[in-house]
């Protein structure tokens, strides 16, 4: 027996449900949220925001504020002038996109209620807030355009100087790009001798509602100006600060410390960051701004909010031949960093897991005088998935078949992978049959169908519905060349560095900046396996551009499938780099060395040394081969060759109280195929959280504006986020079709639950009450909407634009 064989076999880390190593610190309060940061001499900012949706700023009187206690300065947009830079859109979806200039602080005109018009700088946050109340702004009201469809008619303009509200027209046409037949032909055929289903679906406006409100600290006192920000995108922020404020990139350090959630809502460069930056530079002192929840709800970007006009063509038997999508997307008042790119990201996903002859996607992103809209968990793909999965149920009802049967008739068979879709994407792997079979079994599909039938027949007050969503999505943003061809302003690669410390510890630096996902744990597992070192010995560093100088951050379910691969490349480089040194020290030939379980061993002997020993020898550098540098650290940049295409079958049973319209979830089963799983516990967390967020869109959340453009659902009393008490216990499982386009065989999971669950829930509701002639309920499916539909009065009863007044100012007290 050789020494090597005597060591206990190392059980692989990948696949273990490791508890998250970052959690002990986070849940015991040893945290570094941005708002916890206090610097010597730091000043505090409070923003003055427009209460009007659209108005000309006539004058701003700052005198009273300026004279109040402990006020350092008050600035308006005029004072900040060009030092404030601009807020950029990084993805003009067409070369001639109409993009309003987005100044961090408005100077002449405000375009949504919540836009910043002045900033107060004070010794304390409380004093800043008090003085902000004293800033007197005189406005001249302008007509505001609030309704998306009206905005598309250009009668009232969100930005009069632009001449239109329509920012662009973007099309994907299967005939034009040679991936399918002309859509109009296919629809005409179906009209003549098949089925045409025409629907209009509304995706209500949502608010990402991350747990930690946004916060930013800027310290201009060092050689580099440092910004700490509760952001998902420290690297992109640094780049855009340099690009728009004229400070050399090398003089900018951006740190995303512990960040408490984002869901896309922190995938933005914000007016608040830019203003804090400008103010700190102007006065030469550290400054902090932390938003209140109310400010967050009105001014951090919102999500979703398109109208979808859909025309589905199918044969009489239920084989889909084509889909035409006409989409209006509300961008709000400005085009955010991804902006019109969000609906465009859905373009390749309306055809989902299905094989069609023709497809056309037409998208017009439109400006309105409401809070800007940008990426929110799933970004584009939930909208597409919702439309197609709702339509597949409608088709099934039309042909009188079980909706799963109709889906199976249309989906890509397992043996057909890799498969190039009618939208032109090549799916590497998948097994819709296996995921569906497993989900049906866990769900008890047939028994629930029987119960549904029985309740129908007995006229039960509570009707049962079964909703299906056999979703797929594209994630793992993204192959850089593909992004380039779409005019996206950046690449989609990710970077990693591995530093082998002399004591045997390993420092891993990733450019994917986590904000609650558990990168520290999952990435440690990958590196531990690859380098054969203990999980505990791996330290993951991220989020500080001086440590992690290169990266593209965390969004689009990319961290593992792109960032994880960069780790693998870097680790492999370390192993290769250390090999000649190990050979030298072992006095062996490089070609005779084998590396496994963290050890180099000489083939056919019991000679060997651990990679940690090599690291120590490198540190001492007393003895190393001629011509080799004494260093085994390595870095790597991975650019994915394709997107990642997770899929899954989600089944939801919902009970509808036909007397009140109340919907209660009864059972939720999902079987997701996300390829190989690094950490099942983290995956379960992502799936559960994603499901709740998607279910919340179906049932609860809605950003409602009144007709003057005020956000009525402006607090958590009226913007209904669910808690654990509102959800049920989910039953989740997985099938595994490893991705063939990366070495770990993983697929993204961060957005899967959110993308899949919304249509599953709405399908269940419609399924429960379709017997009463109802084929749609507009989201959120409030009890009143369901009840109204049951009264035969339509599916989209408008939400009354008034909040309950629990905290109203008492009479005579204001």
């Amino acid at each position, binding site marked *: 027996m050789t020494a090597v064989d005597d060591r206990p076999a190392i059980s692989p880390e990948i696949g273990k449900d490791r508890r998250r190593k970052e959690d002990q610190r986070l849940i015991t309060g040893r945290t570094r949220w941005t708002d916890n940061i206090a610097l010597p001499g730091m000043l505090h900012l409070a923003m003055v925001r427009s209460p009007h949706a659209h108005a000309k700023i006539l004058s701003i009187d700052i005198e009273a504020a300026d004279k109040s206690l402990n006020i350092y300065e008050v600035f308006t947009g005029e004072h900040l002038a060009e030092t404030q830079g601009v807020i950029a859109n990084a993805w003009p979806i067409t070369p001639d996109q109409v993009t309003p200039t987005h100044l961090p602080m408005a100077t002449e005109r405000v375009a949504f209620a919540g836009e910043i018009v002045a900033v107060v700088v004070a010794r304390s946050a409380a004093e800043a807030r008090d003085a902000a*109340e004293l800033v007197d702004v005189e406005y001249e009201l302008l007509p505001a355009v609030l309704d998306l469809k009206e905005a598309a008619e250009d009668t009232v303009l969100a930005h009069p100087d632009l001449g239109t509200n329509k920012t662009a027209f973007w099309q994907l046409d299967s005939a034009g790009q040679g991936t399918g037949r002309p859509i109009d032909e296919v629809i005409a055929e179906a009209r003549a001798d098949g089925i045409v289903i025409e629907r209009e679906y509304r995706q209500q406006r949502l608010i990402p509602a991350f747990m930690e409100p946004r916060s930013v600290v800027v310290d201009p006192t060092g050689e580099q100006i440092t910004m700490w920000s509760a952001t998902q995108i420290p690297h992109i922020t640094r780049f855009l600060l340099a690009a728009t404020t004229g400070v050399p990139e090398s003089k900018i350090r951006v740190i995303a410390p512990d960040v408490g959630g984002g869901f896309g809502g922190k995938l933005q460069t914000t007016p608040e960051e830019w203003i804090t930056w400008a103010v700190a530079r102007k006065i030469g002192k550290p400054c902090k701004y932390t938003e*209140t*929840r109310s400010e967050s709800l009105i001014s951090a970007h919102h999500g979703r909010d398109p109208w979808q006009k859909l025309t589905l063509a199918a044969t009489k038997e239920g084989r889909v031949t084509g889909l035409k999508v006409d989409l209006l997307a509300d961008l709000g008042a400005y085009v955010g960093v991804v902006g019109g790119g969000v609906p465009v990201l859905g373009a390749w996903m309306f055809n989902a897991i299905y094989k069609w002859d023709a497809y056309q996607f037409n998208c017009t992103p439109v400006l309105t005088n409401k809070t800007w809209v940008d990426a929110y968990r799933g970004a584009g793909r939930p909208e597409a998935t919702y439309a197609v999965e709702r339509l597949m149920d409608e088709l099934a009802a039309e042909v009188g078949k079980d909706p799963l049967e109709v889906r199976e008739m249309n989906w890509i068979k397992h043996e057909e992978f890799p498969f190039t879709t009618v939208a032109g994407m090549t799916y590497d792997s998948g097994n819709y049959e296996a995921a569906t079979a497993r989900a049906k079994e866990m769900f008890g599909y047939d028994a629930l169908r029987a119960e549904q039938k029985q309740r129908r027949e007995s006229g039960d007050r509570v009707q049962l519905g079964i909703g299906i969503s056999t979703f797929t999505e594209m994630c793992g943003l993204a192959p850089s060349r593909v992004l380039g061809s779409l005019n996206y302003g950046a690449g989609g690669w990710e970077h990693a560095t591995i530093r082998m410390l002399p004591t045997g510890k390993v420092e891993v630096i990733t450019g994917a900046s986590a904000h609650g996902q558990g990168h520290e744990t999952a990435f440690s597992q990958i590196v531990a396996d690859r380098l054969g070192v203990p999980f505990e010995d791996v330290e993951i560093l991220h989020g500080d551009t001086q440590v992690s100088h290169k990266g593209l951050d965390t969004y689009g379910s990319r961290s593992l499938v792109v960032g994880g691969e960069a780790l693998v490349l870097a680790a492999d480089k370390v192993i290769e780099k250390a090999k000649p040194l190990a050979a030298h020290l072992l006095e062996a030939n490089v070609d005779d060395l084998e590396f496994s379980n963290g050890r180099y061993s000489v083939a056919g002997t019991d000679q060997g040394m651990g990679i940690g020993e090599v690291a120590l020898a490198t540190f001492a550098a007393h003895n190393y081969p001629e011509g080799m540098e004494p260093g085994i650290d390595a870095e790597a940049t991975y650019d994915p060759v394709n997107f990642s295409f997770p899929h899954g079958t989600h089944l939801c049973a919902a009970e509808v109280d036909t007397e009140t319209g109340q919907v209660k979830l009864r059972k939720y089963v999902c079987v997701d195929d996300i390829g190989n799983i690094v950490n099942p516990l983290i995956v379960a967390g992502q799936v559960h959280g994603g499901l709740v967020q998607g279910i919340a869109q179906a049932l609860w959340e809605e950003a*409602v504006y009144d007709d003057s453009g005020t956000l009525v659902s402006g607090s958590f009393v009226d913007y209904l986020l669910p808690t654990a008490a509102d959800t049920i216990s989910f039953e989740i499982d997985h099938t595994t079709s490893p991705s063939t386009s990366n070495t770990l065989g993983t697929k993204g999971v961060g957005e899967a639950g959110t993308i899949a669950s919304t249509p599953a829930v709405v399908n269940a509701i419609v399924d429960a009450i379709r017997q009463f002639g109802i084929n749609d309920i507009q989201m959120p499916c409030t009890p009143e909407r369901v009840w109204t539909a049951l009264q035969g009065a339509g599916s989209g009863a408008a*939400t009354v634009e008034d909040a309950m007044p*629990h905290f109203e100012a008492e009479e005579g007290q204001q």
Partner: protein
Amino acid sequence: MIPAPFEYVAPTSVEEALQALSEHGDDAKVMAGGQSLLPVLRMRLNAPEWVIDLGRIDSMRGIRDDGDAIVIGATTTHHDVLNDALVKEHALLITKAATEVADAQIRHRGTFGGALAHADPAGDLGAPALALGAEFVIVGPGGTRTVAADDFFVDLFETAIGEDELLTEVRIPKHTGWGAHYEKFVRVAHQWPIVAVAATVKADGGTISEARVGLTNMGSTPLRAGGVEEALAGAAASEDGVREAAEKAVDGTNPPSDLNGSAEYRKHLAKVLTRRAVAAAAGG
């Protein structure tokens, strides 16, 4: 969410509190659990110069048996109310409703008297107090007076408590042995009710002999469903038995329209929920 500056005083007796109130009058607000007052201050919907904290006045807290009534001190928390054996035995409807108030954190700070004094028509405790014929003990510079529930709730956020007065305790006539149910209709668990119905009934052998029914959020104050109560006498203790009586729940109501439901929808709910609440209270 930083309130405007205010001065703070925490008296230890009702007399001291009244003294502070009379000194600062219009410029003062009393604070019990702060669960409604603090959000108002933090959102800067109100900016009193003085906040008078009632939290240190021991005599205002606690629950006692007082012959034909139980007496709940105004600053007794929702949590203490819902866990109290006396309340459960003699005013089960209060226990049921207090259980439904907000969430556990808020129930640990918010108070019985504070909720009633706040007089939010969507508050969960007004309708049960009204249904049970509670009496409100109010103390002011002129001494102590007792106001009947029917006269206590004046309008939206307005009660019979004067600006220089305090609500010190609430007397609830005993309804020992009465069945009770609070049917709260919400979209998410931690919400104020869209509509709720408080019902307590005395039933003998499957027949309702007496019933008290209160409605939450069906007008600018909690409402007593008198028509329903009358029609229930002698009704069978089952959903079908109370169906007709429940239809009268909308009489004299004037519900709001808001994000969570239109007035018309609320009227519909009031009937359905009344039927369900009464039947559940009657054990039917």
